[in-house]
């Protein structure tokens, strides 16, 4: 048996993040609470370093390594950078929140960093097991993050729900993978695809059976209806900083996971999974948008809005065209950017003993701080898909993908639900601009520090990317089409 030393170069960013995570883990154990900022700084530096490494290695060529279980292609480059950027903003937003509540612990950042590593592996996995390992690393870190404010009963409850349902989903995923392995005889994504093409018998029952389990597991992880039950509870129960984390970057990784499994692996069975995704899309759009109207908690409202956004994401993928995948990728990056800003705004308005997680807490923000009311307005209109914010182009792109695949009716359904969606975003705008501030929160909001700056950058990015959407769209097209 000849043993070849694999090429390590494509995986250098992963190795770097892993090494740094271990190093920070040990270092953090020796730091007193007052020096926790060192941990924070190192974690952010790690993200920057990983971004530099990824960009340095980026290129149009596709490289496989570790016995073809790891892939580096343009898609992985772009998505990883998106994950770093989102996580960087998330950690930046989280720090003041954690400090105000006396839970500024190293665990938060270290678990976060391990989650980032999990996401990177999900993005670069080219083998069912690699993908599964990445997913589990992300999931286990996320469960622990949700539970990490251990004195908070709601957070603990949310973590329990998250863990039980997440474990169930992982089980389903493994079951589906084993079916597919049984039918194709390989764990390698490329081999599975070629076996399926050669088989030319896509109505093979065990294969479809396995596919159903895969789709269900993915829907679980992304929170698509009818597998969405955990989303509102976890988003609402988790500390806002953690909600911010699990609502943003992991969606980007989940998109990559979906691309690797369904598109690259099960691509020949497109006709089969397209139908499943159509059902998930319509249900997610309907349930997410309609139930969001009834919410009084802004975190729950965003949770349902996320569900609706997942519906849009699926719409780009189910088209089954390269421009469809690119549009879905654009959608997920835009979503992560906007959601980070939205949850960041909740963090910004909250303070010790006051979570600012009711929609009413935003009342009169335009009087308390016009600038941040404007930033929030941009973020909300972007979620609603109103130009000139970037959210519009995301919706334009996925609807175009659906229409390009001949699914005109799906486009019409999507826009009808986006009108319903516009209502609850507008309601928040209305509360911010037209209502008077509440008595217990009427003093002007004093912007301070990095959080305020980052939030402004985030909000303006939504506007600037909306005025000049060409660049990001070209990047996503490059990532998928080359």
């Amino acid at each position, binding site marked *: 048996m000849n043993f070849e030393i694999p090429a390590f170069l494509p995986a250098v960013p992963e190795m770097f993040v892993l090494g740094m995570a271990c190093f920070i883990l040990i270092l953090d154990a020796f730091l007193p609470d007052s020096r926790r900022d060192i941990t924070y700084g190192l974690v952010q530096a790690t993200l920057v370093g990983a971004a530099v490494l990824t960009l340095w290695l980026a290129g149009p060529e596709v490289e496989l390594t570790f016995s073809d279980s790891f892939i580096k292609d343009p898609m992985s480059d772009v998505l990883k950078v998106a994950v770093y950027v989102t996580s960087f903003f998330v950690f930046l937003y989280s720090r003041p929140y954690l400090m105000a509540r006396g839970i500024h612990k190293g665990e938060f950042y270290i678990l976060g960093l391990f989650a980032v590593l999990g996401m990177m592996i999900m993005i670069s996995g080219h083998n069912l097991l690699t993908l599964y390992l990445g997913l589990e690393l992300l999931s286990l870190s996320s469960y622990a993050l949700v539970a990490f404010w251990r004195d908070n009963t709601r957070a603990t409850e949310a973590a329990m729900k998250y863990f039980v349902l997440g474990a169930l989903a992982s089980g389903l995923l493994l079951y589906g993978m084993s079916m597919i392995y049984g039918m194709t005889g390989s764990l390698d994504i490329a081999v599975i695809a070629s076996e399926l093409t050669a088989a030319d018998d896509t109505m093979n029952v065990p294969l479809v059976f396995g596919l159903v389990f895969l789709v269900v597991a993915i829907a679980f992880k992304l929170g698509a209806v009818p597998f969405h039950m955990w989303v509102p509870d976890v988003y609402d129960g988790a500390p806002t900083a953690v909600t911010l984390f699990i609502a943003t970057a992991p969606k980007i990784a989940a998109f990559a996971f979906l691309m690797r499994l369904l598109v690259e692996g099960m691509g020949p069975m497109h006709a089969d999974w397209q139908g499943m995704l159509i059902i998930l899309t319509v249900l997610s759009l309907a349930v997410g948008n309609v139930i969001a109207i009834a919410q009084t908690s802004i975190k729950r409202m965003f949770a349902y809005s996320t569900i609706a956004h997942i519906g849009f994401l699926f719409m780009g993928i189910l088209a089954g065209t390269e421009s469809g995948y690119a549009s879905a990728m654009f959608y997920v990056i835009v979503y992560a950017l906007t959601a980070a800003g939205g949850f960041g705004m909740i963090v910004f308005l909250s303070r010790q003993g006051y979570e600012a997680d009711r929609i009413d807490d935003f009342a009169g923000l335009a009087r308390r701080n016009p600038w941040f009311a404007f930033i929030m307005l941009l973020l909300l209109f972007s979620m609603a898909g*109103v*130009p000139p914010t970037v959210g519009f182009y995301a919706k334009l792109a996925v609807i*175009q993908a659906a229409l390009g695949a001949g699914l005109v009716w799906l486009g019409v359904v999507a826009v009808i639900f986006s009108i319903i969606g516009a209502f609850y975003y*507008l309601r928040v705008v*209305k509360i911010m*601009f037209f209502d008077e501030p509440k008595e217990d929160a009427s003093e002007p909001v004093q912007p301070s520090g990095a959080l305020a700056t980052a939030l402004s950058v985030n909000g303006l990015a939504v506007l600037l990317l909306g005025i000049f959407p060409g660049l990001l*769209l070209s990047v996503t097209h490059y990532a998928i089409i080359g």
Partner: protein
Amino acid sequence: MFADWPILSLLIWLPILGGFLTLAAGRDAPVVARRLGLSVAVATFVASLPLWFLFERGTADMQFQEVASWIPAFNVNYHLGVDGISMPLILLTTLITVVVVIAAWESVKDRIAYYLSAMLIMEGLMIGMFAAMDAVLFYVFFEAMLIPMFLVIGIWGGPRRVYATIKFFLYTFLGSVFMLVALIYMYTQSGSFLIQDFHDLPLGMTAQILIFLAFFAAFAVKIPMFPVHTWLPDAHVEAPTGGSVILAAIMLKIGGYGFLRFSLPITPDASAVLDTLMIVLSLIAVVYIGVVALIQSDMKKLIAYSSIAHMGFVTLGFFLAFYIYSNTGDWQGASLGIAGGMVQMISHGFISAAMFLAVGVLYDRLHSRQIADYGGVVNTMPWFAAFFVLFAMANTGLPGTSGFVGEFMVILAAFKADFWIAFLAATTLILAAGYTLWLVKRVIFGAVASEKVAGLSDMNRREFFLMGLLAFFTLLLGVWPAPLLEVMNATIDNLVAHIAHSKL
């Protein structure tokens, strides 16, 4: 020498950037905000004049074109240009914005810098929409202007402003998203978002009907047509004076512009099939809404309903074309109807702006819009009364005012189509006279109604200037509409020639 300048870009971005500048510089200094806002508005108006003087008459080609790549992935370009339909509307926009900024001088007291910047940003967006030659660019401007208008009504509006503004936003959003689907569908068929390419895109009958209905959803809401007009009275009543003026004078025209730019040339066969529907809805707007206007007790609501009735005339003029052709066999009459609709739009821009300003003048003094609270205003405000009567007469279509020209052309065209259509359309002459003159009688004439009315002071110089300005244009267009018609003629003839060819 100006012809090569990017005038259209200047017209779009000068007010938008000027709006942000006004906001930044005038946040805590109302005086600075007013001066800066007015300078920007006037500068934009002056910058728009070359469009009129350098516009090449006698050609239907797009002029002052600018092209730059914008979203290469979807083949979307920043492509601007104007023709005889859009150029007059852009000038109307720049003029009315000046009026609105001056009108806000004293009547808006709360956060004036925000108000003015919203108005200026809206101006830029509306000009962008009229000048866009790319469908995505058009849509972006079309939707983006909802945001400032939403805030203007919601922040500075009347007691029920929140209800009105959310209704306004959702109605318009509802209409426009269907248009978006139609635009994307045509992109998947043609591979281009250029509106010109959509004009030449062959489409089957089913596709045309669906696309027509999608456009109908967008533009019928905007213009607005019966039965989707109900947002307008609410929005008008609750909006501040400037908001009402922008809404009536320009935003409603966007619907009419959309019919000419999209519906008719892109789906001529569907338009031909569905023109009866459009004509019936237009006539309902003229007759039924005219009757509804009669019974209003709120001045703004009355003018709002009168706007709907006048817009019914516009859509009537546009969609008579096919009737006239099947009746007379030539397309000459069709041009007449469309040109009449266009003149009516411009004229209504001046008249409705003036009417809403007049109500604003009264409202600033008495804080009431109820007709019953007034009476005998002529005794205390003679100058105001004179202007009010003039604009009321223009609103009823008195010859010599701009209101007459458009209505006359449309009715003339209607006679070529069908006697009964013309008959019903002509009832507007009675109905409009009815509700407008009755309004004049109750508000202006009669005995002085109350002590408050007795204490009214006449218009100040600022208000006088605004009214005079609008009166000038109303009369000018009334006695000498030829220059306007000359600008539009080639474009409209070209449009009619285009819709004469079936796409099937």
